[in-house]
């Protein structure tokens, strides 16, 4: 082997010996295999979730499971509508509160604040993302819920004429608190991506607006916002994906009531929270377990769709450049 390798390398010295090329080929194969493994993993992931969730779908139907308004462990009846609705309400609250603040913070940091404050502000906004979910939950339970209750009651009393928001008697843990915690949690990611998008606005466009005699805000509205609209939409959708899938903090402050709450300040449940709470007891009840895995699958598909859409928006902005 060694002799023949030497012979070959003598006859064609430019091509190198197969022996010396072996590590190269091995590395290439190993790295490619890793990449293949990732794709396989995700496919496997989906299939296993589906197989384990099938008993629930078989008993209640895919549509029935997702849209029946009845989740009762004691009767072994599982219709996930209250969870889906809770997930959507809390995510909506999170977006309504979190996205405008995140965009405003991104604009302030990239365009308005003094240059020296930019670094510290960016770090602090990013640190919001470093606080663990369970710590937000802990804070929510023992600080946010009791401190905000009077304010929530005041708001719902004042707005008594608005359906769903007004005229409620505020429950301690509720949809609004869950949404508020989620807003805080999605803020850093939405803000960070918005900042990135805004950083790609060419200086040319900003200067063109300023050279027309635009004020700073007019420059933002003329040059920056239209250019980054698609990217900001994408950032908001990534935030939505986060809000839908976030588990522990919401579990602690949502009230864990498997029914559709009658108003914004009522207790509820979300898909992720029900899994975290009930899975421990469900391990030995096959249909309950299947229902929870099915809830996980619904969650998975939902976040997948939202994230895929977000990518489309974020990538679209490159078409403008």
């Amino acid at each position, binding site marked *: 082997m060694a002799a023949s390798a030497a012979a070959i390398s003598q006859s064609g010295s430019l091509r190198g010996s197969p022996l010396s090329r072996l590590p190269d080929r091995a590395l290439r194969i190993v790295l490619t295999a890793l990449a293949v493994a990732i794709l396989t993993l995700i496919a496997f992931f989906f299939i296993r979730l589906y197989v384990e969730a099938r008993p629930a779908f078989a008993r209640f139907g895919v549509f029935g499971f997702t849209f029946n308004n009845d989740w009762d462990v004691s009767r072994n009846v599982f219709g996930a509508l209250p969870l889906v609705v809770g997930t959507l309400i809390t995510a909506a609250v999170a977006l309504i509160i979190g996205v405008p603040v995140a965009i405003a913070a991104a604009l302030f940091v990239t365009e308005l604040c003094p240059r020296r404050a930019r670094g510290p502000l960016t770090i602090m906004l990013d640190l919001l993302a470093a606080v663990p979910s369970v710590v937000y939950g802990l804070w929510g339970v023992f600080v946010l819920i009791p401190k905000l209750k009077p304010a929530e009651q005041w708001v719902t009393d004042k707005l008594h004429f608005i359906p769903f928001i007004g005229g409620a008697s505020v429950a301690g843990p509720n949809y609004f608190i869950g949404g508020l915690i989620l807003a805080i949690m999605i803020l850093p990611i939405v803000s960070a991506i918005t900042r990135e998008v805004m950083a790609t606005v060419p200086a040319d466009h900003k200067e063109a607006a300023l*050279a*027309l005699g635009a004020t700073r805000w007019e420059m933002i509205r*003329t040059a920056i916002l239209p250019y980054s609209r698609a990217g900001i939409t994408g950032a908001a959708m990534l935030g939505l994906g986060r809000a839908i899938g976030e588990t522990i903090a919401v579990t602690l402050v949502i009230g864990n009531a498997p029914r559709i709450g009658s108003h914004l300040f009522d207790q509820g449940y979300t898909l992720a929270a029900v899994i975290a709470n009930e899975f421990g007891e469900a391990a030995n009840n096959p249909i309950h377990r299947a229902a929870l895995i099915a809830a996980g699958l619904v969650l998975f598909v939902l976040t997948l769709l939202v994230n895929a859409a977000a990518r489309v928006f974020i990538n679209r902005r490159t078409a403008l450049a």
Partner: protein
Amino acid sequence: MTVSLSTHAETPLEQKRRFEHGGTTMAAGHRVSLKNLSAWYEDQHAVKGVDLDFEPNKVTAIIGPSGCGKSTLLRCINRMHEEIPGTRVEGEVLLDDQALYSDAVDVTAVRRAIGMVFQKPNPFPTMSIFDNVAAGPRLSGTKGGDLRERVERSLRSAALWDEVKDRLNQPGIGLSGGQQQRLCIARAISVEPEVVLMDEPASALDPASTLRIEELVEELKTRYTIVIVTHNMQQAARASDTTAFMLDGELIEAGPTEKIFTKPDDERTERYVSGKFG
């Protein structure tokens, strides 16, 4: 994209000006003077104590090798230089008698009076041809028929109207490079400035488009004071009345274009215009 809050109504002066711009009457031009102007990027002294006058209704070309500070000088005139962090300006820029760097002066007013055209055509990519030109007037509350009239007038002045009048709603970035640059010129004059600064406006364009821009500059000088930065000496010779030569941040020499290109006083100018360096 509307400015809803503005209650700004045209003053009689503005109406008069509008009339003048619309008609063939030549507006009285305005003079820009630089007094001992210096500019820095961080520690780098990019413009060194320049004294220079830009005559009304004349085209002044600033020439010089790259990095000589000519673009920086131009950006000092409408106070765009200060948009870059870490920069500094000393000395004075006067528009007629008004010191543009005095504390009482609003920077947005300066830029409205002194328009700018950039090196690379930079129409707003998300806006239509119409909206690109309308963006400036809209800021000060112009709308409806007035706005359409203003857009048409600006596009006509930029010699672009006939080419785009049937597709005003199409995106501005769909135009050719030369058309885009004329669109940017239309955008710059849509706010009715007194002075127009052009930073190598044809350097990204093909020769035919370059000629059109130069013809346009010749037409525009009847209404505006024009300063054009260029590294293209033929362009300076063709399009300008006065030429200023800069080297290493200093103004070496300024005078009638013909004189600068035929018998300049300074030996460095002579060597530059005859192509010996730069």
